[in-house]
């Protein structure tokens, strides 16, 4: 769904239309859940519901278009994730692999390859410092701009650019060292 159409859906959701809530959830929940999973959330699905519930309940405070709503949604997700990490009181752990494996269906060989690829992606991401991983996930998965990411994580755009550059440089070294799976 393009942003123009999503603008209308956001406006309808602000007016309280049930179909708009559902459409927003169907459109954006996979990305939010993926972001939370990539950051090692313990219960990414539950946290996704919490994020959307908070967003829908506070839509009265939101004003803006679809891009703004997306950025706002990930701000809530970032804060919920921070709260969850604080509750757990330890370094972010990776999501259980079976959660990700469940996403792939079909041929057994393909499933095996996919799970290997997933595990590799997860392992490389986990090797990044948390702030670099966070910035890269928001840029790659949430498709946010540097300024939007800066607003989400509460840093300056310059700091976000530095983090993404360092993160990419580190990823580059790791991927070159490991080589890409064929």
């Amino acid at each position, binding site marked *: 769904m393009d942003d123009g159409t999503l603008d209308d859906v956001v406006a309808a959701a602000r007016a309280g239309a049930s*179909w708009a809530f559902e459409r927003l*959830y169907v459109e954006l929940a*996979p990305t939010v*859940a993926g972001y939370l*999973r990539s950051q090692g959330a313990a219960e990414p699905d539950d946290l996704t519901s919490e994020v959307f519930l908070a967003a829908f*309940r506070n839509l009265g405070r939101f004003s803006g278009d679809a891009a703004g709503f997306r950025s706002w949604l990930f701000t809530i997700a970032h804060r919920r994730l921070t709260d969850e990490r604080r509750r757990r009181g330890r370094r972010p752990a990776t999501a259980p692999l079976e959660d990700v494996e469940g996403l792939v269906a079909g041929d057994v060989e393909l499933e095996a390859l996919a799970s290997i690829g*997933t595990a590799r992606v997860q392992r490389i991401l986990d090797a990044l410092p948390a702030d670099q991983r966070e910035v890269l996930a928001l840029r790659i998965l949430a498709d946010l701009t540097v300024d939007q990411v800066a607003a989400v994580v509460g840093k300056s755009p310059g700091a976000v650019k530095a983090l993404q550059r360092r993160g*990419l440089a580190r990823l580059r070294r790791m991927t*070159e060292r490991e080589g890409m799976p064929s």
Partner: protein
Amino acid sequence: VNGSQRYFDPTRTPGAPAGDDQDEMRTHRMLDERTVEAVLAGRSLPEGREELHDLAAFCADVRATFDGAPAPAPSDELAAFIAAGTAAEPTPLTRRTSRMRAQTLRRVVVTKLATAGLLAKAGMAVAATATVVGGVGAAGALPTPAQDAFDRAVGNEARADLPEEAGFGQDVSTDARDGGVDGGEISDEARARAEERRDDDGGNGEVDATEAGSERGLENARERTADTPARVPDETPVGRPAEGENRAPETTPNGQEIPAGPPAAGDEGDLDAAGTPPEGTPGGQPEGTPAGPPDGVNEGEQPDEAPPSGTPGGPPSGTPNYQSHP
């Protein structure tokens, strides 16, 4: 013997030979912003940056791994919220603000009570009691003897027996609240009532001193007017002017009607024609809210109702496209 050997100190760690950082960052060209954006967004790499192929492929893997799944099943609370489709709740900020206002008011009252003198406290207590008793008495909720005393004191008896004239004002008031005021009807009725009043007075031009509608006041006024025509009646009418009564036209001593104000719009037709919004004007739809779901997505469906069924790209009716948990 060169310089480095001359100053070599065997007790210190020898320096590494130059160029031993070949495997580190110096071998990589810096990532400019355009390249970074291309890598992150999964676009084709700029010319001459083919060495970033692995990095770009990894970013694509990240996207495929974490962003390719269907929406997870919502929690019960979220599902109920989505199904209800209620408007956004009042913001926590609003609730907090109202709570803060209540706390501030309470603090001010407590502070004033604490700093007031004994006499002021007694005065406040009397005022508070009078307010409470007055409110309850006006509502007719006092015990019978107390209510009788209250009614005598404030003249509720007269108010309870409002004369017929008061009914006219109340009708007008009710019509105005209902949005169904008919100016023509009011005008005709007022004119008829004025004529009736002139007939009752015998056309002698006596001014009705009891617009409030108290028969007692009317009789007193008539008596005193007859005794001392130039004197203002001593007894003020007890009854309060009924709501809307002052709309009735006054009459001159010779019985001519004096219009109470500008001509009512109803004299020429319905008030709606004079700019009053007609009853049932739609006002519930917020400004800017689309009249329906986006084009091509939910055509023909009402936005505030159930999600469209069978529309392309949308979930089937009543079955959201959530990932189901085992």
